[in-house]
Structures are given as structure tokens and as C-alpha cells.
């Protein structure tokens, strides 16, 4: 490094000594900087338009009364106090989002990894199982949710008929506040094919000689998993958890479709559809953002909730990135 830079400095020294040389150097630097900026411009424009501007304007509107039609008016921290103290749906939505981020993501990671481990062990027919487990991931979310609500219908669904036939008490699934989130988790786990494929690739990448050495040392299956498999695939686990949590923070389609179909309020009815049915148990923060902003014309409060969502995503990701070693036992 020093051998490269020293001659350059030496070469620059005489030129910098004279005013003309200083100007040449300055214009060269400017040209370099402009060239760098030009190369970076696609990213800068994209970042500015699609991230920086929306973020800054969300912050700005969180302090304003704005309905999308009339000029915004300054409200100070009113929107913030309203959301945190006077909006009764905020805390249930927050609780549900965190529940999904913790339970649903954990289940998806555990099942994705578990299925991946099983499939790589299968000697014949692995391709069929791989396809079978991957296919649900390709199902459109709305169609998959509709199918699940139909299958888990407490009155007419085949799952409950089966449970009742064998004498197991059948829950009301999407119609019961205690079971709605677990039902959504079952739906998410059903579509775990994406993680399964990623984990399979990571598992196949673990050096075989490490397993062979462990076998010679007579370690147990759990120890093999804990001290060889997990440390080797830790970056992939981290990726699955971080993207899962970000996905949970954006979770909208499945709960809104499930609650709409299960409540029976499909539109045009006397009953007004309220996201979160039953009893706000499936209400997530993105649904609340939509409801405040686009149904109630209250952009200010919607922006506050959106910022909370952003802060949570960042905090979760930062925490996981920092605690990665502690979480999965490797400093990889």
C-alpha cells in the first residue's frame, strides 16, 4: 500500500508547488469525484427516490395533519401521543406483529432447517420430496390463504371434521382469537419451501471431513449438529431470521384475507370489515398503517406507525447482527 502511494505523493509534490499545478490537481480530483458520482448515480437516484425521500417525508408527515388532499398543517407531537396513548388498536397490532416475528419466524426457520436436513439424508426419491415441499411456496398468498380458511372452517372444514371424528376437540382456528395467529403460522410453515432450499444448499456445503472427524471422536448426533452443522450454516440461519423478521414486519396479505373470509364480511355488506378479526388478533402494524392512512385519511398517525415499524425492523436486524455469535454459537 505504502509503496504504491509514496511515488504518487512524490510526483504530486512538484506540481502542487506551483499555482498552475495546484489547479490541475484540483480539477483532476473534481473530475475523479464527478466520475465516481456518475457511476454511483443510479444507486444514488434509487436510494434517494425509494428510500431517503419516503423516509424523510414519513418523518415530516408524522408531525402534520394531512389527509392527502388539503395542505398539511403542523400538529407537533399530537400524532405521536395519539398513536401511543389513544389509539386502542396500536398495542394489539404491535403485540401481534411481535408474536408473528418471534413465533412464526422461529417455526419457519426450525421447520425449514429440519425438512432440509431430512431431505439431504434421503437416498432415493429426494427430488420428489424436494418438489413436494417446495411447491406450496409457489402458491399465490391469497389463494393459499383462501384454501386454508376453507380447510380450517370450524363448521364445514375437513380438518375439524377429521378432528371431531377421532374425538379431538376442534378449535375454531381463524374464527377464534386464541387460534388465529397459530393458524397463520401453520399457513406460513406450509409454505416453507424457500427456506428449505436455502438450508439444503448450506447443509450440503458443510465440509464432510468435519463430520468424519466427529464420528471418529464418537460425538452424539446433537453434538454434531450443535458444534459442526450450526456454526457452518450460521450465516444462512442469520439470513433466514433477518429476512423472516422483515417479512413479519410487512405481513399484510395473509391476515387480511383470512380475517375477511373468516368474518364473512366480503364487501358490499351492511357490516363494515374491520381488519384484525377476530378481536384484533390478526391485526398487524402494516394493516394499521393502511387503515389509518387510506381508510381514515389520517396520514399523520399512519406515518407514526410506519416509523415504529421501521425502527423495529432496524432494531431487530441490528440486534441480530450484533448478537449473531451469541445466538448461534459461532463467531463466523
Amino acid at each position: 500500500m505504502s509503496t504504491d502511494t509514496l511515488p504518487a505523493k512524490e510526483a504530486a509534490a512538484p506540481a502542487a508547488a506551483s499555482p498552475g499545478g495546484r489547479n490541475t490537481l484540483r480539477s483532476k480530483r473534481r473530475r475523479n469525484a464527478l466520475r465516481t458520482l456518475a457511476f454511483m448515480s443510479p444507486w444514488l437516484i434509487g436510494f434517494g427516490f425509494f428510500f431517503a425521500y419516503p423516509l424523510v417525508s414519513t418523518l415530516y408527515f408524522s408531525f402534520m395533519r394531512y389527509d392527502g388532499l388539503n395542505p398539511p398543517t403542523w400538529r407537533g407531537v399530537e400524532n405521536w401521543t395519539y398513536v401511543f396513548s389513544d389509539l386502542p388498536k396500536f398495542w394489539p397490532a404491535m403485540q401481534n406483529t411481535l408474536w408473528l416475528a418471534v413465533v412464526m419466524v422461529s417455526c419457519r426457520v426450525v421447520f425449514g432447517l429440519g425438512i432440509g436436513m431430512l431431505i439431504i439424508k434421503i437416498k432415493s426419491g429426494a427430488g420428489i420430496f424436494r418438489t413436494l415441499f417446495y411447491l406450496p411456496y409457489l402458491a399465490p398468498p391469497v389463494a393459499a390463504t383462501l384454501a386454508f380458511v376453507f380447510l380450517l372452517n370450524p363448521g364445514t372444514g375437513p380438518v375439524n371434521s377429521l378432528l371431531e371424528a377421532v374425538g379431538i376437540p376442534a378449535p375454531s382456528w381463524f374464527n377464534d382469537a386464541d387460534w388465529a395467529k397459530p393458524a397463520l403460522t401453520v399457513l406460513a410453515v406450509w409454505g416453507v419451501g424457500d427456506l428449505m432450499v436455502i438450508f439444503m444448499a448450506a447443509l450440503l456445503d458443510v465440509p464432510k471431513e468435519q463430520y468424519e472427524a466427529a464420528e471418529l471422536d464418537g460425538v452424539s448426533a446433537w453434538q454434531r449438529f450443535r458444534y459442526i452443522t450450526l456454526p457452518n450454516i450460521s450465516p444462512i440461519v442469520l439470513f433466514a431470521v433477518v429476512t423472516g423478521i422483515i417479512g413479519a414486519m410487512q405481513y399484510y396479505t395473509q391476515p387480511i384475507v383470512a380475517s375477511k373470509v373468516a368474518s364473512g364480511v366480503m364487501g358490499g355488506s351492511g357490516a363494515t370489515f374491520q381488519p384484525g378479526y377476530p378481536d384484533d388478533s390478526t391485526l398487524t402494524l402494516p394493516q394499521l398503517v393502511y387503515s389509518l392512512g387510506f381508510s381514515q385519511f389520517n396520514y399523520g398517525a399512519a406515518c407514526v406507525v410506519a416509523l415504529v415499524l421501521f425502527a423495529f425492523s432496524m432494531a431487530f436486524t441490528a440486534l441480530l447482527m450484533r448478537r449473531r455469535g451469541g445466538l448461534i454459537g459461532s463467531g463466523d
Partner: protein
Amino acid sequence: MPVRPRRAAAALAATASIALFASACTGSANNAASDDPKAQTTITFWHGWLDPAEVKAITDNVARFEKAHPNIKVKVVGGINDDKLGQALRAGGSNGPDVVSSFTTSNVGKFCSSGALADLKPFIEKDKLDLDKVFPKVLQEYTQFEGRRCSLPLLSDAYGLYYNKDAFKAAGLDPEAPPKTWSEFAKVAKTLTKPKGDSYEQLGFMPNYLGYETVVEHYMSQWKHNGYFDADGRSTVAKDPAFAEMMTYQKSLVDSLGGFQKLDKYRTTFGDEWGAKHPFHTGQVAMQLDGEWRLNFVKKANVSFDVGVAPMPVADDEIAEYGKGYLSGTIMGIAPQSKKQNAAWELVKYMTTDTDAVVGFANDIGNVPSTLEALKSPNLKFDPRFKTFLEIARHPESTTMDGAVNGASYQETLSALAHKYEKGQVPDLKKALADTAAQIDRDIAATK
């Protein structure tokens, strides 16, 4: 990076942000009614109908308008819900609508107060329309908010009781004497209910708030009350005892018919409200609170029993008001960003006030006509049972729900309490109603 380019980049980013900020604060509503309604023009009309027969009815109505106004062509776009409508009205743009209609009268407060729909007062004054002579009072109420008239009624809906006459006969009830008070109704509903295991062979009535049209505001129209807000705009749900009376009665009905859990499980076996497998069509329920449109659906579904219609019952001590009901309807307005507002007004005026247009559309679509003249028109062609709904529409005590700046939010807050109460999750209804009223007031304050 050298200092100057960094400053330049920062300045560039700041300029871009400011420019973008400025562009974000657009979309303000302005009345731009400077177009010539006699000039050749094309306007765009957005509506929410989806059913092919209903789409044909609205298309035919527009065709009649085009015949009467040959200089104005109308581009009709169907299947638009209120969310899409709200976004389009805020975004504006040349592809947006000039004229819109909505089924959700509860959003009128939001549309009027925000300016999402243009103020129609200048047009009404210009054409010297006396609304009191054109529309029934309730319909005038639900199409304006706090004095700002941003919409007019395009047909209306009246809610009454549908009942299965054959089921009445089989249960030993007189099919020509439907219940008139809520206590009679509870007895009849119980008599008509046939339990089967932990479910029902036939349910007299589905009282749950998610039983399609058995929602809070429809029930409330059968209890005498003075609206959802007082003169200061504060919620009355705690102050007016009618709300607690209604909820208490509904809960007693739920309990007497089997309890919430059993009823709600039975509800999950129901077919779609707008399909042939509606529980009233299939005989799963013997009585149903519904709008006048159900008559057409009943005919289309070819039900195997004789259907009776009547006004919904009233509270026992309010029998003098029997015959009233809940009124609602479709509303029509003009997009504030439209550059063809005068032409748009011609369409709104024709479809909402022209007697022949209103009667023709009401005949085609099976809704209640929305003008006083059309209600009396000899050209109305209806099933004799429809007369019940015409009378409900004309009844002086028939009510609707109030508008609010945040749309149906206050109804949602009240409904959330009602749902909890019917499930038995609210130990102190009085306190819960007080909390709900305070919440409604806070939500409205946050939106103003």
C-alpha cells in the same frame, strides 16, 4: 471523497428532497367548474356495481343520459370500492374519474370534510334545485356533512324483515302476523329454532353482529335515539340509554338462541351473502334482517318456500313507531380535480333528480327510488312485497347513521364493543359505553 464534491452531492440531495417534498404536498381540492356543459366532451364515471344484471342497469341508465345529452359521452368504469375511490380522488390525474358513486354512506362525512368530493352547492344554486322538494329528509342527511353538500342520493336502500312463511306455518305461527315488537320477535325466533346436536337444523334468526346485515346501526334504527352525536359533535353512545338497551336485548337474543359460540359456529356454515347459498335461501335461518334488494336475490335463487316481508320490530314501548327502518343508499358526487365539472354535474343531476331516470334505474336494479316524485310514480314496476320497503323509506321515523370526519371509524369502535358484549366479555356495559364514547371523541379529534 474530496470536500467540494461531497458538498455538491449534499446540495444535490437536499435540492432533490425539497423538490420532491414540494411535489408531495399537492393534490389539494379545487373547484374548477369552468367547462362548457354544451360542448362535446367525454367524462368518466366510476361506480361499484359488479353483478352483471346491475352493471347492465347502470349502463342502460347512462345510455339514457347520453341520449338526452348527445354532446356528453360517458366512459363507465365498474367494480370500484371506496378504497380505490379515495386513492383516485386524492391522486387526481387525467385518467381519474369525473363522476363517482359509492355504496358507503358512512364515508360521506370523510369525503365532504376533506374535500375529496367537490362541493355541489354552486351547481344546486345555479340550477335552482330545491332539495327539500326533491329528496326525502333522511336521504338529504346522509349525503351531506356539517352543511357541506358533496353528494346526492342515487337510489336508496330500506331494511326490513324477511321471513319464511312455510317455516312459520310448520311452527304453528301465523304467517300473516310477523312480530312487531322485540319481545314478540324473541319468542318467534325461539319457536322457529330447531336444534340438531350441537348445531341447528333451522335457526329462527341469526342475531350475531356478523350475521350479514344484523349490524349495530341496523339494529339501532329500531330503537328511538337522537343520533350518534350531540350538538357539540360528541358521541352519545353512553348518554343515550337506547344504545345500552339495544345491546342488552341483542345479547339476550344470542343467549336464548343457544349462546354466542354455538351461533357463531353455525354462522361459519353459511354461504356468501350475495350468492344463491345465502342462509335464508337455503332455509338455514327462518328470518333475516335485510335490504329491499333481497327480493331480487330470492327470486333469482328460486327458493322453495313462500317469503314474507315486514318492517323490523321495534322496542316494546315504541310500538307507535312500528313501520320504520334503517335507510341507506348509493351516493353520487363529482371529483374535485375534474376539469369537466359542469358536464359531470349534468350526469349527476340527471341520474339523481330526473324522475324517469330514477324510476327506470330503480325498476332495473330493484332498489328504492330516491326522489319524492319517483316514490309516487305509477311507472314503478315492483313485486307487491316491495311496497313494504317503499313505506319504510317514507316512514318519518326511519333513520340512518351519522357521518363523521373519519368515516365509519366510530361505528367500528362501537361495533368492536358490541362484538365483545355479545361474547360475554364485557362485565360492565355502562362503563364500557362511556369508554367507547371517549374513544370515539378522541379518534375524531385526531382526524380533525
